[in-house]
């Protein structure tokens, strides 16, 4: 099986790794870098539990090969706290019931960051549309949408 060497920056940390060419980005993150916060839920790009940021854009790491990340910057759920402080979205998810079992949560947080990057003052409909690539079975999305709306307000400083 052919192997390739890739260089990527994950959560600000440069990595150089020799991996099988068929290695999925999700498996590289979870099994080679031991960043198990990124979840696998469906293998087909539907559930969004494996969502990560690639140069700030949300991608499904189960549909990407690790080699496609060569030369790029990846952010996972482990990389969004700063100085031990929760990201405002993380804090908001706790306060507003944005998670229950927590399995979809890393992907939801990534999607939420991408939503707010695009639109710092989203409408509820925009938030729902932005989450349409992420499944949650626990919350009915009510708490997630509320969490994102509340975090947006906080992040705007209003």
């Amino acid at each position, binding site marked *: 099986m052919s192997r390739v060497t890739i260089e990527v920056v994950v959560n600000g940390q440069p990595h150089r790794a020799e991996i099988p060419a068929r290695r999925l980005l999700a498996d590289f993150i979870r099994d080679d870098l031991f960043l198990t916060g990124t979840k696998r839920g469906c293998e*087909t790009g539907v559930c969004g539990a494996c969502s990560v940021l690639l140069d700030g854009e949300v991608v499904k790491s189960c549909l990407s090969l690790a080699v496609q990340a060569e030369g790029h910057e990846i952010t996972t*759920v482990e990389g969004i706290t700063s100085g031990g402080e*929760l990201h405002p979205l993380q804090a908001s998810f*706790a306060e507003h019931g944005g998670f*229950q079992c927590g399995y979809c949560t890393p992907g939801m947080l990534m999607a939420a960051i991408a939503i707010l990057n695009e639109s710092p003052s989203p409408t509820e409909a925009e938030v729902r549309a932005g989450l349409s690539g992420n499944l949650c*079975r626990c919350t*009915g999305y*009510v708490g997630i*949408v509320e969490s994102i709306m509340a975090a947006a307000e906080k992040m705007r400083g209003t």
Partner: protein
Amino acid sequence: MTMTTQARLDGDASTIGRPTPQVNAQEKLTGRALYGGDFRTPGMLHLKVLRSPYAHARIISIDTAAASALPGVHAVLTGDDTPDRLTGVHRKQHRILATSKVRFVGEEVVAVAAIDEDTARDALDLVRVEYEPLPLVHNMDEALSPGTIEVHESTGNLSIEYKVERGDVDSAFARAALVHEATYETTSQYPGYLEPMATVAWVEGDGRLVVRASTQTAFLQRNRFAEALGLPVSAVRVIQSTVGGAFGGKTVEECNSLICAWMAYRLGRPVRFVNSRLDDFLGARSSPAERIWLKMGVDNQGLIIAKEVKILADCGAYEGLATHVLQVSLVRSDNMHRYLKDVRLHGRLAFTNHPPRGAVRGFGGPQAAFALNSHMAELAEKLGIDPVEFMRRNAVRAGDTTVHGFELGSAGLTECLDQVSEGIGWITKKARRPDTGLKRRGIGFAGAIHVSGNREMGNWDGSIVTARMTTDGRVTLSTGESDMGQGAYTMLAQCCASELAIPVSHVTVLPTDTDVSPYGHGSIASRVTILAGNAAIRAGREIRGRLLALASETLGVPEGDLTVSGGEIFATSALPNRRLTFGELARMHIYRHGGEELRVTATYDPPTFLAMSRPDQYGNVAPGYSFAAQAVEVEVDTETGQVEILETFVSDDCGKAINPLAVHGQTCGAAAMSIGWALYEEMKFQDCQLLNGNFADYTMPTAESLPNIQSGIIESLEPNGPYGAKGASETAMLPGAAAIANAVYDAVGVRIRELPITPEKILAGLREQEATAAARERRHA
């Protein structure tokens, strides 16, 4: 010694009734929580299984040579390698891997353990299995027809049959002013937890088997592994990982954990088995599809006085908990009707070559609630009364003993009805002139009952909580019940913290480890709040009692003059400067002659009855009964048949809402799951082969497809409940499907009695309406 009267407690510290973030928020939000598949241990192998592509076939031969020769493969095992004892929840029907015969598409036939998942999958491709296909049992009607091949020999394809009769049903129907009968059908719903089932198992140096799994029921799993592997229970340890959702699917029916445990034990090496999503669709127990025939009789006051129910349910290929699910579908919903005394029930569960069916959130309740609430709406229309009023008139109340012997200490059904009516603006919307355009709005409504706990195993439905105070004055709780996201640990921490007047953050709840946690049946039947909540309160009170006794002795102050507040105990009046912290007291408790760690164990076993032990199923099975109601406004597009939910309001009577944040979360999640089931979630089969075993084809609701679900809480205080609380995780799953069906009928006059409510069925109903109208016109012409 009753502490509540002797010492004052600082009530301000209590979070009971306040929205409280989950105690495991930090680990879940930072990605550090370790779910079933996240755990690793040195030397760990990866397991994959080859599943049967046939729904019914004899296994002629299995050739594993090429797979075994693949580098990196450690074991390729078949049914012949498994213990020859049969396993199963009640009826023992299958080996750990299939031998001689397969009975459903997806049945586990060969297991491979290899150095990584890719190698294990590659090895599966090299296994050759020769099958001799057998005739299929396609559905439950065929199953019970004479001459059909048997899925299991000498069963006649009948798994179980229930017959219950109370009162004089025939004369009650004869007395009725109105009798209505109709048949309803429900489909099988996949639990749909986001974390596919995952297990890591290994053997310790002393030969004991350790299984770390995503489970709702660690202790029941331990019993099951021990039995299946022929080991003493004491030689098996089950550790509960963080659970990524369960919804009934992670109890004792799934086979991922069993196969993984066996492989690890057999190889003596750590083994990890994570289901792919397709594995999970095929291997999980989805809910039994049911056909429900209902006949109800109503007197001239609009009171339900006679009821007859016949249910035929699809068990699939092996019997697990589906027998009990059917019992619930048959018996439970009758207990909503205050004046019903005469009832006849007949239920049959048929073996087919579908995948085995079992426990899913609501546990038979959603099926029955769909039929009952559709039926009641039809009856209300015939009676010419409002359906909400019809249910209110028949609603059970606190203090009632119901037709099947449920003793209702609390009942908020009427209040749920009022709240959802108010919430959705029922009166105003009902009075509106009907829409006549292409898109038409309609409103619908449904109500439901569920248990909080259910006496069903070994005539014990108790819960045990162990509390230890560490020497810093903080508390660690152990329990055999599971938190799978519903917030059980937060609830337990709140109860204990409240009794000790300390912050919730001073209480740590440990995940179940059968070696150290007290025994528990686990998180099933919405039992944890009412049972473990009571145990946690008792444990907290016991700790407080020990602290007060020690403080009283040390300070020389009577207990009645002591106040417990802020993690300290101090003398209330005379000597305000004399105080002892919980930490000081916990240390004193140990460091003295005859001292010991401050550790208590408290048990709550409710005053309920094992009705399942009686053929007539009569008795008070639960310490509390929860109620729910839901109102829905839909808009139906008459050109496309598409149903859009414009608004929905769900009320959950969960008694005291210990944590309203968690209750609202459960209610909204349950409502979303029922909306999915009502409109599009359906396990689709062709010749018993699952056609939609992935999230692209089996569609669950997305954020975009749902309205903002509104939820309300009814706090009918339950005398048996901790601070008056009952269960809140399942009840709201029940009313949704019928509420939507009723709203669709209100909008366009099409009555859908078979789930899911698809655009095709609505369009067919509309065409039928047009044809009838045209025929009528021709007759008049």
